[in-house]
């Protein structure tokens, strides 16, 4: 940097003197390098220094965020529990690509027995069985039992294996094993969409009684949309008031918005339970006012609407209503804050000008005020919607049977079924859904129009 400034000093040093001050000669620095190059070098250094400053953050994000997520997502298509522990049978499947259903080939059964014996020695029969069980329920015990007895099996293997357990003679099982013999598989994505495959690879929809995931995805979307809408309805007037009131009042209001924001999520959720459960504060109040309950004046009406339980109380908790109420409250500040920051920048004179030019209150709002708040609405809605899509703890606590979201079933797959591949596939679909919505938002509203604060 100093080099370049030295070049402009006339007669400063002997070097400078030796340079002829003709106009068309390229500008150089004191040590003779062309100015252009020196500037580039300095810029490069500056960029490097800036980059070095963000390196810690970059590494942090890569190591703690991107890598684990990428690895987990990889599990949604990659699971080698079967292929790596059943090498001989997997090999046989590769060599016989045309055999579907139970093979007639003795070699297949020999490979199976050999693999089961090794599995027994390495204690991997549980892993293998679990992998097959993901696609064919009830087959885990087939593997653990057969592995236990594998050491005693002698040729002819086909007969011996079928003698051991007749389930080895089912086409479905061999179809599932063939698919599992490749570590890469689409079966977890199919399952996430309530689909399955026949032994010869045809895709079909699973039985109605077994379908859960698609319904949950839709429910997650519509409930998130509803919560976003409710948040907007509630937050708009609050934010407007915050932005227009004199400072001493608005500060107090601001604290009231932020106070719940600073309170633990669990505390707020459990408070809602205490308030809204059927023996809770709100219901007790209505009962003591004589509105509801076994002798309440409104019980008959509520009952005919299907909104009262057997005791005539309103079930507000452990259902969709509970999830919607609690989540709207919890996510409200995420809508208020961006709205407020945008409204704060809208000069009140605009509205006054509109009114003085003859616009009605509504026209002035509709044509002047509202369009200017759109960047805040966009930011708040996107924030609330995306947060709601992945919300876990509140629906888990207050959702009961019908108010839980897709994140709750992802947790169940991870923690209770130990099926990480399925959890990863569900998570990937959720992520893809959010990205699509983000893209749509960008196309319709434009992401540059968003203002977070």
């Amino acid at each position, binding site marked *: 940097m100093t080099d370049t400034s030295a070049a402009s000093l006339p007669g400063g040093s002997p070097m400078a003197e030796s340079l002829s001050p003709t106009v068309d000669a390229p500008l150089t620095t004191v040590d003779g390098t062309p100015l252009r190059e020196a500037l580039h070098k300095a810029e490069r250094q500056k960029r490097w220094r800036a980059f070095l400053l963000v390196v810690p953050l970059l590494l942090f994000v890569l190591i703690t965020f991107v890598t684990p997520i990428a690895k987990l997502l990889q599990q949604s298509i990659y699971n080698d529990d079967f292929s790596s522990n059943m090498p001989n049978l997997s090999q046989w499947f590769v060599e016989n690509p045309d055999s579907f259903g139970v093979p007639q080939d003795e070699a297949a059964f020999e490979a199976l027995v050999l693999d089961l014996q090794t599995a027994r020695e390495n204690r991997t029969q549980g892993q293998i069985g679990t992998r097959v069980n993901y696609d064919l*329920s*009830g087959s885990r015990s087939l593997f653990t039992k057969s592995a236990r007895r594998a050491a005693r099996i002698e040729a002819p293997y086909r007969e011996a294996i079928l003698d051991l357990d007749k389930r080895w003679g089912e086409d479905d099982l061999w179809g599932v094993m063939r698919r599992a013999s490749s570590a890469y598989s689409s079966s977890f994505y199919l399952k996430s969409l309530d689909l399955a495959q026949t032994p010869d690879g045809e895709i079909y929809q699973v039985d109605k009684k077994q379908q859960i995931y698609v319904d949950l995805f839709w429910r997650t979307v519509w409930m998130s949309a509803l919560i976003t809408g409710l948040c907007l309805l509630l937050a708009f007037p609050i934010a407007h008031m915050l932005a227009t009131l004199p400072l001493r009042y608005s500060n107090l209001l601001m604290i009231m918005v932020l106070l719940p924001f600073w309170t633990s999520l669990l505390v707020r959720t459990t408070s809602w339970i205490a308030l809204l459960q*059927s023996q809770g504060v709100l219901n007790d109040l209505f009962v003591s006012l004589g509105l509801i309950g076994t002798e309440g004046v409104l019980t008959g009406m509520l009952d005919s609407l299907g909104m009262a339980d057997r005791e005539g109380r309103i079930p507000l908790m452990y259902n969709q209503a509970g999830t919607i109420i609690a989540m709207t409250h919890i996510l409200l500040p995420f809508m208020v804050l961006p709205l407020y920051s945008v409204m704060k920048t809208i000069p009140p004179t605009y509205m006054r000008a509109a009114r003085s030019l003859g616009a009605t209150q509504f026209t002035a709002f509709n044509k002047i005020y509202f369009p200017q708040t759109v960047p805040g609405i966009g930011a708040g809605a996107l924030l609330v919607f995306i947060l709601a899509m992945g919300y876990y703890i509140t629906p888990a606590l207050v959702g009961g049977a019908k108010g839980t979201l897709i994140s709750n079933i992802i947790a169940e797959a991870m*923690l209770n079924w130990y099926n990480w591949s399925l959890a990863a596939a569900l998570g990937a679909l959720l992520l893809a859904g959010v990205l699509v919505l983000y893209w749509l938002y960008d196309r319709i509203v434009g992401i540059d129009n968003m203002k977070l604060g």
Partner: protein
Amino acid sequence: MKLKQLLLTTAMGAAVTLGASGAIAAEVTVMSWGGAYAKSQVEAYHKPFTASTGVEVKSVDADNPAKPIKAQVEAGNVSIDVADVEFSDAVRLCDEGLLETIDASTLPDGTDGSSATDDFIEGALTDCAVANIVWSTVYAYDTTKFSGDKPTTMADFFNLEKFPGKRGLRKAAKANLEMALMADGVAAGDVYDVLGTDAGVERAFAKLDAIKDDVVWWEAGAQAPQILADGEVTMTTAYNGRIFNAAVAEDKPFEIVWDGQILDFDLFVIPKGAPNKKEALEFIQFSTGTKPLAEQAKWISYGPARKSSGPLVGKFNDGKTEMAPHMPTNAANMGNALVNSFEFWADRDTELSERFNAWLNS
């Protein structure tokens, strides 16, 4: 100069303190289920163990201690040394190679002289796990809510006409399906045969349909006595020890119905790669000895897994409640009892859980 000296002495002091604390920090982390149950373990196992070996025991609670094990082992970052898990989880985790094996012959003999393998109840020892207690899933009701007849059978739980009020059930397929079948007249011995067929599953869900609209679903074990105490439900399924604790220690008007109880073991396991494996094994050897197991029954009504502990079980720590009638293994309570089949659930858990969730949502 002074500043330098100050820094030097502080650094040295810190080094000495850290070094010293490192030297005495022999400790073992035990993850259990929290609440009254974890307390009983702290009193009966952890405190005497620390007193006799000097090894500190850190007690950690979880909704289900089996859950974090897979994640911890696969990430190579195991922070717990001993976990208290259910039977099906112990077998499943062991099969997947996520647990250390435990040689049963290293366990101490019973005080009556019988070897450990003879002393433990059948099924209480597996390759990777040592059972400490027998517990059961039962249902309990609030006695103040029923003035006339009291519920006595599993069928009464599903009978809303005779015993009105909401029901609490664990939000899982396990235990609910078995109870539904028993309420529908299936004998305990046939439950898993029936549930193994499609028609049996239909039958169980059909029975659950009868009370579905009046169910409050709970997830953590402590929630069950809570919703019963809150008056949210008049009856709920629960772990028997939780109800005992609420009824005896907290004087709640709860009564257990033992008909159709489902027995299960809780077992100690060591996750693969546990940081204090040696101490973990010592802890398990110590706490599953005859005396600590009998001692635990003073704090909670779960049956000891050793036969030799049985005669030593005395009174509850209030000094007046005789424990024997509150044990799931007590002969009077075993009239119609089902032993949970781990193999059935290891096989069909996912399928039936999906089915259960679909049923919940429909």
